[in-house]
């Protein structure tokens, strides 16, 4: 049974960006209205009931983050929508911005109101350049209709939004690196503390939220948290946008209730594997996520079930690889990605990736030894433990899980060579 939902995605394919009136007819901006009418305590309460956790990958409870944020005092504060969706295998934020841009803007306005910011930015990756003008147009129309700009809905709340284009750097998905780039610098992560919530853009408190998170905020405040919380499981409340891709018949963005099994997702929603082959492994949460061998596909897609087995939801990406795919080749593509994207600031990440690439080259050429495998494992652990930011800390996740689950495959190519 296909159990996809239409909660966050309720407005998909119902309007074009020019048709803000249709968005309004569908109940658009009702979340913002409720938020402004009932106030900040109400917003925080609703978010807490909704169980919403940041959908960019960190999964931090949004109600808690927002409640902390509103207590930071400063003359000027900013909010950001992080649309720098750079995690390979992830494209659900793109779909949200394409198919329901107003909902994201509405969520950003609610975040601005709660945080105490008059100005917000939506940082869209360069690769989504085709979206930039569309979002600018949506901002303009929302202003003309009184949902952005001065004295929104007659409540005295002023809030404006600007679009900022990324320039092609995965590491800018990290909040402080993103802000560095907004200030005209190379996007290298900053030393913490201070966190960006305390000193971010132009040194002012800045709160950043993922696109999906903001869309859910608008949804929850419109429909009521209690209604939203009817979806999902006890600990993983609500619905989730997933990016299903790889060797599945029907790749795409889907909204599902938490609690479906991966098998249901892949077969009932994704239509199964191309050529009706078998599954070899999945990679959940994008290129920084672990490889999951087929034996786990009956695991439920919830934070708690996945974490119990050492996996995670991450960005919501579900990549499926069929039985014919080579783990070594896959790891090479992972390693190439991180090699390309490392910002070079800290040694474990910069040098670790260089070493990892060298060893992988050996593996694929078949000249690697078991000693090399031990070496890769050691380097991977150092990268994970000692890198400065999330990029380096997760760059070796795929490798470590490949060693855990697929060492016969990695080793057999080693041992065959030794037997020659």
């Amino acid at each position, binding site marked *: 049974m296909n159990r996809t939902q239409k909660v966050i995605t309720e407005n998909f394919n119902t309007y074009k960006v020019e048709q803000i009136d249709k968005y309004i007819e569908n109940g658009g901006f009702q979340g913002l209205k409720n938020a402004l009418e009932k106030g900040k305590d109400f917003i925080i309460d609703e978010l807490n009931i909704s169980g919403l956790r940041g959908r960019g990958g960190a999964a931090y409870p949004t109600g808690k983050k927002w409640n902390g944020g509103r207590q930071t005092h400063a003359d000027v504060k900013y909010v950001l929508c992080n649309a720098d969706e750079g995690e390979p295998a992830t494209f659900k934020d793109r779909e949200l911005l394409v198919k329901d841009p107003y909902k994201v803007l509405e969520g950003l306005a609610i975040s601005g109101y709660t945080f105490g910011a008059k100005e917000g930015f939506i940082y869209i990756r360069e690769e989504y350049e085709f979206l930039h003008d569309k979002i600018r147009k949506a901002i303009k129309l929302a202003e003309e209709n009184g949902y952005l700009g001065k004295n929104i809905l007659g409540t005295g709340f002023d809030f404006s939004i600007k679009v900022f284009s990324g320039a092609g750097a995965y590491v800018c998905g990290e909040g402080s690196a993103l802000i560095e780039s907004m200030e005209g610098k190379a996007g290298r992560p900053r030393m913490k503390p201070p966190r960006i919530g305390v000193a971010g853009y132009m040194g002012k408190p800045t709160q950043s939220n993922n696109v999906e998170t903001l869309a859910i905020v608008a949804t929850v405040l419109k429909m009521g948290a209690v209604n939203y919380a009817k979806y999902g499981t006890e600990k993983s409340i609500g619905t989730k946008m997933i990016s299903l891709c*790889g060797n599945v018949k029907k790749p795409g963005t889907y909204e599902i209730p938490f609690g479906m099994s991966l098998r249901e997702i892949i077969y009932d929603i994704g239509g199964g594997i191309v050529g009706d082959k078998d599954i070899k492994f999945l990679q959940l949460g994008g290129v920084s996520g672990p490889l999951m061998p087929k034996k786990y596909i009956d695991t439920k897609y919830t934070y708690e079930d996945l974490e119990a087995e050492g996996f995670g939801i991450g960005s919501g990406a579900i990549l499926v690889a069929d039985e014919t795919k080579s783990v070594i080749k896959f790891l090479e593509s992972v390693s190439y990605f991180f090699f390309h994207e490392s910002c070079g600031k800290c040694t474990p990440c910069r040098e670790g990736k260089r070493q990892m690439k060298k060893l992988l080259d050996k593996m694929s050429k078949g000249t690697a030894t078991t000693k090399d495998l031990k070496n890769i494992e050691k380097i991977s652990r150092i990268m994970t433990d000692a890198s400065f930011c999330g990029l380096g800390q997760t760059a070796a996740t795929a490798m470590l899980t490949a060693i855990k689950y697929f060492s016969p495959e990695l080793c057999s190519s080693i041992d065959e060579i030794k037997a020659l």
Partner: protein
Amino acid sequence: MTADIFDVNKILKKYEYKDSSLIPILQEVQKLNEEKYISEEMAKYIAAEMKISKTRIYEVITFFSALNDKPKGKYFIQLCNSTVCEITDKDLIENALVSELGIQVGETSQDKMFTLEYTPCFGACDVSPAMRVNKVVYGNLTESKIKSIVSKLRGDTHE
């Protein structure tokens, strides 16, 4: 300089010569250049106008993959080599491109018509394998699609 200084000045003025706007400035200046890059001469000019060091400009250009310090062909083809495209047969597409274009990945053709490079995932994994040509996404690629795309770009009328 290929780009008209008049247009460059307009961009600088629009951003009030603020160094915090360096990235949008460079992106817009690069767009003026048919060869899709920022020449050294241009980098020097911008540095002088904005009263910042040339090093700062180069740090930014070389850091971000969407900013180029080397010229690209008329059609800049960026083939995704990240994970999803990798397992949906990007290799076949790469071979087709290499044989149709007569250049290797990383090269520009002699007539400067084509540049072929790898690029990390640009979020078109649902239509993988995918590439971008002058930033326009082409997805669900097959060998025969590559043939027809390349011949169209070449301006061949026979299909």
